[in-house]
């Protein structure tokens, strides 16, 4: 009966409100009619707030016109027998940021260390030492899926282990922005400020998403200053060095570099294999080392993709009952590896390298042998050797019909330069990251 009345109410409202509003906000509600009125159960706070704010009156009017006006209407969050406290429309609570929001899986113990991340790990270990405030703030930057969040949260866990009562907040930057918007809307900025400015440690992830959000940057700037002045811990992550983020205020960029900035690089082959073997052990997968090497050689870009490959392999093996071998992995990961092959082509490498060094593609493929052209050309050849499955003659052919010995020489030269010239090595790593991310 209650459901019938609610259905009649919805049908009635449909004639007065846009269909999308009814579908978006009212249909997810569960109606409970009782002696003392109507309880509308919303699936989440957003729906509840919207109904409270804009749709309570149309509901009341519709029921009244149907001759079933309830004594009162409450909009609550919950489903089934779960009943939340009634909410006052003018004072929705802030999200519970008192919780630290840490993922239990992200600890130092589960972090696989290699050359590419050992400095960042060491810095994070230092930052987890409450007595050592030398590295404050700690900025960890690098491409996606390389373990920045893992390291940051590991610090949080370690701080909590040392002091279970520590007030620690892990928050993604866009969440910080959304919380601030909610606080402004409901005139609760003081509480928002107080919460963030009285933490023992603030871990804020992916600050590149602050770009272009001026008011949020302003607030974060003051929060940042307050915490630093109080000698509280701040750890930040970014997908690149903050100075390279467009739309981020200069004063914030400057502040971020006050402490220690450490990069996390894409893992090299040995680390990729170690990560695969470690994850396989964790998930109870029997992964032969040659299969780990096969995947590690083909999936170069980031740890998430390695995990994705491993999960796919595990599922395929469970479904087919097959033993995991290199041949099996080739079959099971065929689609995923094909995407890598499609994205990293000789042509794409040439185009990317030419853009990176701001030279013309025609020059890269041409006969000029000046150093400004020859070095990028050699780098492009070496990248093609590393990132594609093409043979040396095929690569030579792709570079204006050059001999395979020229490619071989280029690969050797690049290897030598990477060991002796830091800037050259940085360029190579950057290009590799751009091409595989």
């Amino acid at each position, binding site marked *: 009966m209650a459901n019938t009345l609610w259905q009649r109410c919805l049908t009635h409202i449909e004639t007065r409100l846009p269909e*999308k509003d*009814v*579908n*978006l906000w*009212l*249909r*997810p509600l569960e109606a409970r009619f009782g002696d003392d009125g109507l309880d509308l159960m919303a*699936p*989440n*706070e*957003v*729906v509840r707030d919207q109904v409270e704010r804009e749709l309570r009156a149309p509901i009341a009017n519709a029921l009244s016109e149907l001759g079933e006006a309830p004594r009162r209407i409450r909009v609550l969050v919950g*489903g*089934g027998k779960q009943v939340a406290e009634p909410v006052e429309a003018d004072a929705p609570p802030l999200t519970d940021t008192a919780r630290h*929001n*840490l*993922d239990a899986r992200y600890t130092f113990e589960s972090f696989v260390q290699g050359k590419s991340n050992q400095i960042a790990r060491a810095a994070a270990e230092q930052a987890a030492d409450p007595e050592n405030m030398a590295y404050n703030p700690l900025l960890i930057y690098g*491409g*996606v*899926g390389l373990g920045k*969040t893992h390291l940051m949260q590991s610090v949080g866990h370690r701080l909590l282990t040392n002091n279970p009562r520590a007030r620690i907040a892990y928050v*993604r930057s*866009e*969440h910080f922005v*959304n919380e601030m918007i909610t606080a402004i809307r409901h005139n609760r900025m003081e509480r928002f400020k107080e919460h963030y400015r009285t933490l023992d440690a603030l871990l804020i*992830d*992916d600050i590149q*998403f602050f770009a272009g959000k001026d008011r949020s940057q302003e607030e974060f700037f003051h929060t940042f200053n307050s915490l630093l002045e109080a000698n509280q811990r701040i750890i930040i992550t970014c*997908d690149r060095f903050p100075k390279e983020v467009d739309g981020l205020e200069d004063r914030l960029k400057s502040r971020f570099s006050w402490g220690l900035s450490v990069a996390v690089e894409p893992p090299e082959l040995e680390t990729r294999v170690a990560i695969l073997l470690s994850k396989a052990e964790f998930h109870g997968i029997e992964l032969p080392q040659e299969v780990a090497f096969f995947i590690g050689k083909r999936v170069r870009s*980031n740890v*998430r*993709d390695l*995990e*994705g*490959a*491993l*999960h*796919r*392999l*595990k*599922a*395929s093996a*469970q*479904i087919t009952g097959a033993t995991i071998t290199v041949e099996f992995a080739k079959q099971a990961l065929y*689609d*995923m590896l094909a*995407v890598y092959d*499609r*994205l990293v082509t000789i042509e794409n490498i040439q185009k990317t390298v030419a853009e990176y060094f701001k030279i013309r593609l025609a020059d890269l493929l041409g006969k000029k042998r000046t150093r400004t052209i020859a070095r990028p050309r050699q780098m492009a050849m070496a990248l093609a050797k590393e990132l594609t499955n093409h043979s040396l003659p095929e690569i030579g052919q792709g570079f204006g019909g050059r001999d395979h010995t020229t490619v071989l020489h280029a690969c050797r030269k690049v290897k030598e330069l990477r060991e002796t010239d830091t800037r050259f090595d940085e360029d190579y790593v950057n290009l590799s990251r751009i091409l595989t*991310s």
Partner: protein
Amino acid sequence: MTVQLVLGVQLPASATLEAFVGDVNAEARASIAQIIAGRAERLYLAGPEASGKTHLLQAACRAVGDAGKRSCYLPLGQVRQRLQPLIENLAEMDCVCIDDIDVIAGQREAEIALVGLSDALRARGSRLVAAGSRLPRELGLALPDLATRLAWGGAVCCRALDDDDKIALLVERGAQRGMTLPEPTARWILKHADSDVPTLMATLDTLDRASLAAQRRLTIPFVKQALDTV
């Protein structure tokens, strides 16, 4: 049982794993079964239209909901407005199934919200299943952060059934009902009826009843007559 349906999208009664047909997507089906059983936390399905992705997502949503968990099926193709707050507030679900990821490709703010949702679900150990026309890296997403998160639990490619698959399916499903459906008859059905899989299965039901009632074999003339009278 609480199947939370954002937007009031009604899951069809047929949205079950048992009703999913076609051996060509057996791996996708088995992977969804792992999600439902809680043995896998996330999965991405890639494939063209009519390859069964929506059916599998809805089946996951329904089954997890039937097990008393809070699940949600979110077809992005149907919610272009006010998407961001919706996405952000699904973080408390036990299982979120997001269809038509393609729709938000290139919409930076929506992608950022999905990244946040992905991390929030992971922190709670909740399940996330998503589907799109291509593998995440090929969707044209603005944020590689999102592409890597979508593929984190592994991606399975689904394909639409071709005519030979559908004929084989008709013959096999007919045999399961005790019907002998000759291949030429199956080919005729495919040519003359709507060829989407649910319609073909419904046609098979009709023919099952008609052949039982008339005690006739499933010849092309009989099938033509039986379908003409429907």
